[in-house]
């Protein structure tokens, strides 16, 4: 699974989405009411654990976290910034 798919799977499961087809990867998660402020913290905890990154306070912004796509590209940027790690190129989806 790509990073984006893993994030998507987590969000569908954790926020018990009834119809996955209704959740587009560019849908705004907080604005649409799917994710509340506690939910954003759950997402942060997930990406930190799943992808071995640390999310700084000043990175907790809608630009980084408001949609599945944005989270995926944020994770990709973080992992690149962390220097060469073990992930394969197929792991990072185009965002």
């Amino acid at each position, binding site marked *: 699974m790509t990073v984006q798919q893993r994030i998507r799977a987590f969000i569908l499961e954790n926020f018990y*989405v*009834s119809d996955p087809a209704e959740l587009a990867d560019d849908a705004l998660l907080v*604005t649409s*009411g799917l994710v*509340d402020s*506690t939910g954003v*913290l759950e997402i942060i905890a997930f990406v930190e654990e799943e992808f071995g990154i640390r999310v700084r306070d000043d990175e907790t912004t809608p630009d980084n976290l408001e949609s599945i796509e944005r989270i995926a590209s944020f994770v990709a940027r973080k992992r690149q910034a962390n220097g060469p790690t073990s992930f394969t190129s197929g792991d990072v989806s185009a965002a």
Partner: protein
Amino acid sequence: MCGIAGFVALREGLPPQSLDELTAMVSALRHRGPDEFGLYRDAHAGLGHARLSVIDLLTGQQPLCNEDGSLWVTFNGEIFNYVELRAELEALGHRFRTRSDTEVIVHAYESWAEQAFERFNGQFAIALWDSAEETLILARDRLGVRPLYLCEHGGRLWFASEVKAIFAGAPALTRAFDPVGLAETFTFWTVVPPQSVFQGVTELEPGHVRRISRRGTVDRAFWTPRYAEGAAPASSPGEAAERVRAALEDAVRLRMLRADVPVGSYLSGGLDSSLVAALGRRVSGGRFCTFSVRFEDLEFDETPYQRAVAERLESEHHELVVSREDIRAAFPAVVAHAERPLLRTGPAPLFLLSRQVREAGIKVVLTGEGADEMFAGYDLFREGKIRRFWGRQPESALRPRLLERLYPYLVRSPVSQRTLAREFFGRGRAQWDTPGFAHQPRWQSAAALQRLFSAELRDRLRRVDVVERLLASVPAEFPGWSSLAQDQYLEARTLLSGYLLSSQGDRMLMAHSIEGRFPFLDAHVVELANGLPDAFKLRGLDEKHVLKRVARGLVPDGVVERSKQPYRAPDAQAFVGPGAPGWIEDLTSERAVGDAGVFDRGAVARLWRKCQASAAGGQLSNFDNMALVGVLSTALLHEQLIRQVPSRAPGVEFRTFVDRLSGACGRPGSGIAAGV
């Protein structure tokens, strides 16, 4: 306090309705009034009554009639000013046979017609049958303390204190959820009358009177709240506190003394119930019982405050310790009594507490309910004030920091959480001037639960906007009220009436035949509170400012000064983990979820997995808690009120029995069903 039921023909030529239906309805309400039962029937209408004897124990039976037997009443509740009204009515020439407040209703209606209801200071659901005019009059108290449900079926209008009595009386009626009622519940935490959660069933709106005859139906409000206009304050906060104190003392005195049984008090440990108990204590001469819920989970517990008040009042204090297992075990019965989906387990401890009251031999309790709505106690009002202030200068970085005054944990939180909180509270702040602005965050959070709804239900709701419906149904004066008054009105109309007074109030009390009395909802207290300037209620960010002044010296300082703790009970934690009974798994199973048709099976399965995983130590959010309690309560409601055919319990024995069709008539003292 009691249960009422009945029917009236809406068209000519219907065959007489058999007595079995009325008997089944009254039997279904036995828990509301276990002391005595009564019925009246003629060719067009029937009235039933289950009585909890509180006033005029010997001769207060119902249904009861006027001097010539043309006007009959069945009534649930209390008219606290009945002594004063009776004197007025006697001066007008009416003759009384009993000492009851019920008899005041028939004579008041004879003299003043529908204007009678606005003279009643009380909590009531009333059905009056004018047999000469062949007209049924239904009325309900100003804020909806007492319930009254309606349903048209088979050419008749059926009415009852609880929906289960209508279902018992009309078993052929289709029992199903109403999509709009569900959408309202999963937005406001309650339906908003006249809407109910059951298809075809409506609720008489609080403060309304309805006149039903074969010529048609007329429904109108006999009362709407009046809030202070923007004029300069007529007095100082100190003077206002004196007036509020006097009005509250009167309200408590009426509620303590207008009863022929002892009256006790609930005591949560907060300001409102402590104040009510303190005033009640001063009226009561001898034994005065107070009742408190304690929690095994310390997070929810308020024991030290409760004990401090009880010691100060020297009351006979009763404590009930509630565990997660207690909540879980009581929950099916709680839902059956509440008759609506719940998003919190808060009603469950109060269901258990009323049982303890009953066991202590007390039938009537005072509670502090209504103070937060009338005197502006909720965080929501303070939050609304800050968000509006911010919205007027939406780019301000300083204004949102006021939120930290409201939610001190934000100061200690990481910046990320503060950023998120700002995002949450700031959403839509440009619309700070629109009605419902203060409530939008709460309503939107709850409405997000609708993503659990099945595709079919979501499809049926696609063009329904319940917030728009609510805001379109406010009184004509609403736009002229201050923002705080608008917020207070919406709060009273939704959460107070539908949840606190119903699911957490009447239903949990009456489950064990206990009558609640609410001094803060006294007609004079409400008028006075609504007439106060905003700044006397919410002074800066000091909530219930005037009420705190009243309470000083009457309750321990620690209780006046403590920060407000919302009443909460363990929610999802009560249903997961070892020892959880099988019914929970059954109700979240694919079959049960599919049968009820409300929720999506996959979504419920994912929710249930998440909740079970939390039992191993994970955290559940507020949203997860509401979701699980909402799913379980909806499933329990479906199982108990929709799927199961209403049982016809063994009939009750009628002490009052007036059947004009058979000519049978039994009155108290004369035995039952003696031919007349």
